[in-house]
């Protein structure tokens, strides 16, 4: 098997079909995350912070946003988010 040491134009051509899917997947995650962030009813600070994470951290950034960034609002609704033990009293 041949391993090229210099990257030439035709070699980039060979790489492209392999990298393209990654690019597309990343673009999908990236844009969905950004659109969702912009639509979100949150403070500007919050949007800047997560916007930076989504844009600067490749691939992992949008995923971090989906897992952690979107929790805030759904987890802390109007109800008291105190320890469950306290909740049971009238």
């Amino acid at each position, binding site marked *: 098997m041949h391993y090229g040491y210099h990257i030439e134009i035709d070699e980039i051509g060979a790489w492209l079909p392999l990298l393209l899917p990654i690019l597309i997947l990343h673009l999908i995650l990236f844009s969905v995350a950004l659109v969702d962030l912009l639509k979100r009813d949150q403070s500007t600070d919050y949007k800047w912070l997560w916007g930076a994470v989504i844009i600067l951290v490749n691939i992992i950034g949008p995923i971090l946003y989906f897992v952690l960034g979107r929790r805030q609002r*759904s987890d802390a609704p109007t*109800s008291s988010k105190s320890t469950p033990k306290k909740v049971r009293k009238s």
Partner: protein
Amino acid sequence: MHLLQVSQLQKKYGNHEVVQNVDFHINQGECVALLGPNGAGKTTIIKMILDINKLTGGKILLNGKRHDQMRKFIGYLPQHPTFYPWMTGRELLIFMGGLSNIERDILEERINELLKLVGLSEVENQLIGTYSGGMKQRLGIAQALIHQPKLLIMDEPVSALDPLGRRDILELLKVIKQKSTILFSTHILHDAEELCDKMLIINKGQLLVNGSIHQIIEQTQKPIFIIQAPRLSEWTHQLMNEDLIESIELTGNAAKVRVKNIEQGRDWLLSHILKAQLPIQKFELVQESLEEIFLRMVKSS
């Protein structure tokens, strides 16, 4: 037969008795307020009726039947309804209705009716996360009514709302009351008085009063002497330890004095005022208001 019959209801957490031997019943078509200060055990009683919390003792019967069947016949609005913020109002109603095994086409129709009733038709396709507190409460009422329950139970339905939202919900409940049997808890006497004809006053887990508002006033109302005069506090201080006096409440330069016997008390108070040469501006005998009855009972228990 009573619609709901609660007898000797008890709840203990360890050694702490949260609810002690509570007895009451609700008849078809009644609107009953479960009244008491925060921490009195209202929510615990409601949760036991709903089978969320387990009973330590006692019995709860619906139409004279046992507990497992209850959920089908009760609509419940929790104290802080959160629901799923990512659902729309309509989707929540479809979800809740589906859990109660309602056929899809009947469900659609009923959802439309309910959304109209609670005034949410225009926002039915918005996410619940964007709703205001009052809207969530109205959605909560709609979901509680979706399976046409025999009994609607609400836990503090208006406590968390601003005056406007509160007014809204109270008006809505007045409409619903005409067709349903309602049990709702509150710590605000005024709400209870406005909506309901029957009241259960509880404090520290014990049922203090049970009856119609009319009845409660008639049976438990006590006379109060209102004495108004300057420099009253010194004088009232001397009265504290007298046998005849039940309680004294001082606000500004007016005192509310409760006595054990009206005749003796009046004579005694007047003579005492003369002796002390108190320059009274007012000496009046009045009947307690409902609020005063409520406060007295809660305090003395």
